[in-house]
């Protein structure tokens, strides 16, 4: 099974990277750009044959390691049910 975990900074946390990208887009002539927030995602292949709730498992990955909930929120999704070989 393949899952994806999105990790993004909380709204109240300053995102200097997003700010810099915002400035760069604007200087390229995309004047309509108002705000950019950068985020990251992780694609994870895992063996789900013993998992009753794979989505919950992905949440555990996020809580234990991938997201720091002091500054970040996360969202998980299942991409493919079977190994895409």
């Amino acid at each position, binding site marked *: 099974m393949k899952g994806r975990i999105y990790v993004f900074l909380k709204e109240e*946390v*300053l995102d*200097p*990277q997003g700010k810099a990208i915002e400035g760069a887009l604007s200087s390229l002539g995309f004047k309509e750009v108002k705000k950019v927030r950068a985020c990251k995602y992780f694609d994870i292949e895992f063996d789900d044959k013993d998992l009753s709730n794979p989505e919950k498992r992905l949440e555990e990955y996020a809580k234990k*390691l*991938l997201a*720091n909930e*002091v*500054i970040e929120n996360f969202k998980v999704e299942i991409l493919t049910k079977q190994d895409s070989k």
Partner: protein
Amino acid sequence: MRATVVEFLGSNCDHDMIYFSKEVLKFKTEVVWYSERDLKNPDVVFLPGGFSYGDYLRPGAMASRTPIMESVIDFAKKGGFILGVCNGFQILCESELLPGALLRNKSLTFICDYVYLKAENCDSPYTKKINKILKIPIAHGDGNYFCKKETLKELKDEGRIAFKYVSPEGNIDEKWNFNGSLESTAGILSKNKRVLGMMPHPERACEKILGSDDGKLIIESLISFAENG
């Protein structure tokens, strides 16, 4: 005193810390590897600066989940003294031994420079002997301290802000808050004030020939606290 310096993959200020501990402070100094579990019975644990795990994921995130950190967390629970500097501070936050997080510097640039620090609460083990503005270097890209409003209030109410970035004269000024930290916070303490995390490097300001020996005052405070309470 007995000190243990923990080395992680990618620590690069470990030898500065070992020199500080062994040669300057004359501590009996042990060095332990991240994959070990035995801290070798120290009075104080030093978590050095550097780029553990290449800062992958988030600075300090991977290091905080290594075997030795389980022992460091136990040591903290038993009231042990821990000083985390720079990446060591990031590791302490990621381990939840200290609240909050260190974000990318506001300028998005790596900053290597001297900063001036004011000890905010002179009743902690690390600050009781500090009676002047300290001149200590920083070298980091992710030192922008952030925490929730409620956490900041708690830190202030409990006297747990150890150091703030100030001007050479000791005034709070955004110009001297290089990395954009919340309320110029440069270092914070745990609830029992025995765990200190700070972005500036006291071990790089431990002899006059380095440009400053103000960093020594922090550990001299600790020695005095450990001996006299």
